[in-house]
C-alpha cells in the first residue's frame, strides 16, 4: 500500500471521482439489429445484438424472449496471448452481464424468440465487464428493444485505503477492493454487483453511492451516442 494515490491524484493523474476517457458509438456493425463500440480507458469493445428471432430450440419460453449473452476476449486483447476458447472467467461474466441487462428490457412482447448479445473485447483493461454492460445497453437501444431505462456500469474500488471511482487495470490488480456495479437509474436499481477484497459495511455503502454518481455521468455518454446516430441519420437525408 502506498503509492497508488499521491497528493489526492491517482497514477494516471485522475482525481478520486474522475472517470477515465470514455468514447461510445452506436450502430457500428452492418448486419446486426443493433450494435455499439466503446473505448473506456484502454478497453476497446464491440457489441452486436441479433434478434429477437423465432426459435423452436429447447430453452425458449412461451412468455418472453430468452436472452443469450457471450462475453469473449480476442486472443490479442491481453498482455499475454489468451487462448480463443472461452475461459471460466468469460463464462461467468457472460452470465452476470445477461443478468445485468435483462431487467432493463421489456421482453414479454416476444414469446418463443431468442435475443442474442455478443460482446467482443478487442483490448481489455480494468473494468471490461462494466464497459461491456454500458455498451451492450446502447446496442440494445439501437436494436429498438423496448426498455425501461439504459443500464450503465462502473467499478468502484479501494486503493491505498481510499475509495476511488472507475478502477484502472493497475488499481484493480494492486488495490484492495474491486466492486463492479450496474444501475438501472430511473428505478434506483442495482442489476449487477460483484465484489472482491475486504471493506467494511460502511465503506461498501459509500462506494455504492459513489458508483451511482459515476453512472449518471456515463448515462449522458450513452444518450449522446444514441442521439448522434439518430442525428447523423437525419443529416444524411
Amino acid at each position, binding site marked *: 500500500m502506498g503509492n497508488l494515490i499521491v497528493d489526492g491524484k491517482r497514477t494516471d493523474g485522475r482525481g478520486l471521482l474522475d472517470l477515465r476517457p470514455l468514447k461510445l458509438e452506436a450502430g457500428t456493425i452492418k448486419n446486426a439489429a443493433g450494435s455499439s463500440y466503446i473505448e473506456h480507458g484502454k478497453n476497446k469493445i464491440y457489441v452486436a445484438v441479433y434478434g429477437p428471432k423465432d426459435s423452436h430450440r429447447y430453452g425458449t419460453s412461451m412468455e418472453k424472449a*430468452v436472452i443469450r449473452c457471450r462475453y469473449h476476449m480476442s486472443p490479442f486483447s491481453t498482455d499475454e496471448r489468451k487462448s480463443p476458447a472461452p475461459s471460466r472467467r468469460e463464462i*461467468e461474466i457472460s452470465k452476470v452481464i445477461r443478468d445485468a441487462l435483462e*431487467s432493463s428490457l421489456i421482453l414479454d412482447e416476444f414469446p418463443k424468440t431468442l435475443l442474442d448479445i455478443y460482446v467482443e473485447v478487442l483490448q481489455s483493461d480494468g473494468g471490461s465487464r462494466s464497459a461491456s454492460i454500458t455498451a451492450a445497453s446502447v446496442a440494445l437501444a439501437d436494436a429498438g428493444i423496448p426498455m425501461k431505462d439504459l443500464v450503465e456500469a462502473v467499478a468502484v474500488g479501494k486503493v491505498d485505503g481510499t475509495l476511488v471511482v472507475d478502477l484502472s487495470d493497475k488499481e484493480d490488480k494492486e488495490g484492495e477492493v474491486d466492486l463492479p456495479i450496474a444501475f438501472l437509474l430511473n428505478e434506483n436499481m*442495482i442489476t449487477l454487483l*460483484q465484489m*472482491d477484497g475486504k471493506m467494511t459495511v460502511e465503506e*461498501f455503502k459509500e462506494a*455504492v453511492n459513489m458508483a451511482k454518481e459515476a453512472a449518471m455521468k456515463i448515462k449522458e455518454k450513452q444518450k449522446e451516442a444514441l442521439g448522434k446516430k439518430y442525428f447523423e441519420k437525419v443529416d444524411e437525408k
Partner: protein
Amino acid sequence: MMPKKGPIISNLRKDQILKSLSEGRHIDGRDLTSQRPLEITPGIIEKAEGSASVKLGGTHVIAGVKVEVDTPFPDTPSEGILIVNAEVLPTASEYQEPGPPDEDSIELARVVDRGIRESKMVDFSKLVIEPAKQVYTVFVDISVLSMDGNLFDASSYAAVAALMTSSFNVYRMEGDVPVKTEDKMAMPLADLAVSLTFAKIGGSLVIDPTWEEEGIMDARLTAVYDSDGRLCAMQKGGSGGLKIDDVFQVVDAGKAKYLDIRKKIVEAVENAKSGN
C-alpha cells in the same frame, strides 16, 4: 450463454409462497431471517486430504480437498495455488444434464473461490516447498448431490469446513525433485469466510431461499464476511434488480447473522477433530 430451465412453479403455488412470505414466513414455516437446518459433517472422505458433507434443508453438497505439488505461477513465486471446481451432479435434479460444468456450476465454483481467496482464509505463503520452484496446489472439488436451493452457502460451508479439517503430506526438495515425506501438515489458515445469501421475492427480503423460492425470486445477493465482519466477496444473481436500499439492508442483515453461522462451522470442525 442461455439460462438453464428449472422447475416451473404453478401460479397457485407461487401465490401460496408469496402469501406466506408476506406474513413473515418461508413456505416451509421458518421466519424470514432463519436458515434451514444446517448439518456439517467433516471428514467423510478418508481418501481426501480434507472433506465435508453439508446438508442445508434438502440441499446436499460434498466438498473434498486434494493437495498436489506443482510449479508456482510466474507472478506469485512464493505462493501456493488454490483451484476450486464445482459440479452440480445430474443426481441433483431432473433439470441437470450430465456434461462439462455449465455456467451455473462455473459461477458457483468461482464465487466459493472468491470467498475463500478474498477473506485471506488460506495462508498461501505457507504453501511453498521452494520459492519459484515447487508449491502446494490445493484442489477444492465440490459435488452437489441434491438440489434444493442456496447452493452458494451450502457449497461455501462445505469448502470451508473441508479446508479447516485438511492435513497433507509434507514434501521436501531433493535437488530439483519434490519428494513426499511421511510428515503431515495442517492446512495453514488465517481467517474464516462465512457466506450468507438473501433473495428478494415479491416485496420480501429473505435469507437462505429454497429452490422453489429461487424459481420465483427477482434477484439474489450473496455476501461473504471475514471473522471481523468485513465484507470480502459479493455476488448478485438472478435476472431482476435490487433496489439500492435492499442491498444495504442485506449487508446489514448479514453482518448481524454471520457470527451464528461461523459458530456452527467451528463447532462442527472441532467435533470432527476431537472425534479423531
